[in-house]
């Protein structure tokens, strides 16, 4: 089976993996320990994940 015959996700993992990690930083170390290049994006859900506060903020224009 050639690369082109594999499902897309398998094609992805058949090549060198480069990761953008969004949110929890703990995953970064595990990936780096496996020799994988990782770019970390420091992101949190709006209002720390409080849905009521996030809804208010959305209406107030954030």
């Amino acid at each position, binding site marked *: 089976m050639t690369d082109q015959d594999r499902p897309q996700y398998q094609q992805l993992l058949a090549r060198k993996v480069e990761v953008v990690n969004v949110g929890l930083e703990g995953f970064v170390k595990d990936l780096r320990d496996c020799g994988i290049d990782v770019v970390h994006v420091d992101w*949190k859900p709006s*209002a*720390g994940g409080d849905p009521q*506060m*996030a809804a208010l*903020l959305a*209406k*107030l*224009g*954030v």
Partner: protein
Amino acid sequence: MKLIEDANQQALTRILEGEPRLIDIVPARELIPGLRERMILHAGPPISWDRMCGPMRGAVAGAIVFEGWAKDLPTATKLAANGEIEFHPNHHFGAVGPMTGMTTMSMPLFVVENARFSNRAYCAINEGLGKVMRFGGNDASVLNRLAWLRDVFGPTLGKAIRAAGGVDLKSIVARGLSMGDELHQRNLACSSVFLREIAPWMARTSTDNAVLAECLAFIGQNDQFFLNIAMAMGKAITDPANGIRGSTIVTTMCRNGTDFGIRVSGLGEQWFTAPVEMPEGLYFAGYSEKDANPDMGDSAIVETIGLGGFAMAAAPAVAGFVGAGAPSEAGNFTRSMGEITVAQNPEWTIAAMDFAGVPTGIDIRLVVDSGVVPVINTGIAHREPGIGQVGAGVVKAPLACFQQAIVAIAKDLGVS
């Protein structure tokens, strides 16, 4: 929301257009209508005697003796505990005060006028380091120094300030930022520049060389002398930005050793409070965290205008002093505060940040959305009255104040 964006632009414009000048030193009773016998103004949001922390109680007792309302500290404490002293926040009377922030009728206050909006704000004179009333000190040495400030230093410096026609403050702050000050835990440069400007006028107006030398030395030996002037300046700059309906810009941050309080432009005089946090920092020899009092003082008014912790990048030496990490990490604090502010101040720039302006205009929406809270550089007081400063550190504003304010402004604007 257009109403909020327009209101915030107006609040920001008022903050940036302020023209603060130090114009005088005057006894508090002549400046503040309603400040009378047995009435004490304190730092932070409103608080009653029973909830006051140790240093605040110590300072209150000292202030009562200083004003002659009681003959000694035990009697003064009884007077306060029996409800015979009236307490109000400085902020309700156009004033601010560092740490315990005691303001009573005979204390001389700096007068800062915001020429752009014709308003004034006041702050007591910085007492220097060591055992002082702002850290809860109240023994004879503390009260004697306050008497000297009232009877000798205040009148001497006030005369010089008036003869000079006032002192422009924005330019001193701009120079101080370029010389390593952040205007909260480091005021060495601004104090020195101020002394350079005012010393000739003190010489011209003084009639007693010994007094002149004593007054010059008092300023010259106190690296934090300019802090109280900067605080009155901050109050004079932020007051005109308060009361703009819909604005989510913070106009006050302060603490009383028990509660942290904020006020927001669109919500006027309303306080939003939460338990104040303990500073994280470094302690003087012989002291540790177990000696520390939770944070206090109106001095966070300097962070409210983009200085102090917000301008940490200008003062890498401070990062080490307050235990905030390596000097090379100072810029991270300023960048982080940029995430919760709506603009930079083009008149107050930081060379180490490629002359970016200090982050200005804290937006409660950005704070709650990001979870990033204002950082404040602060002194640490001993938790027992009468001992004084035991360290310096960084404290974070409690997120709960900003969450409460979001709910209140949403309600005010009919958003649910």
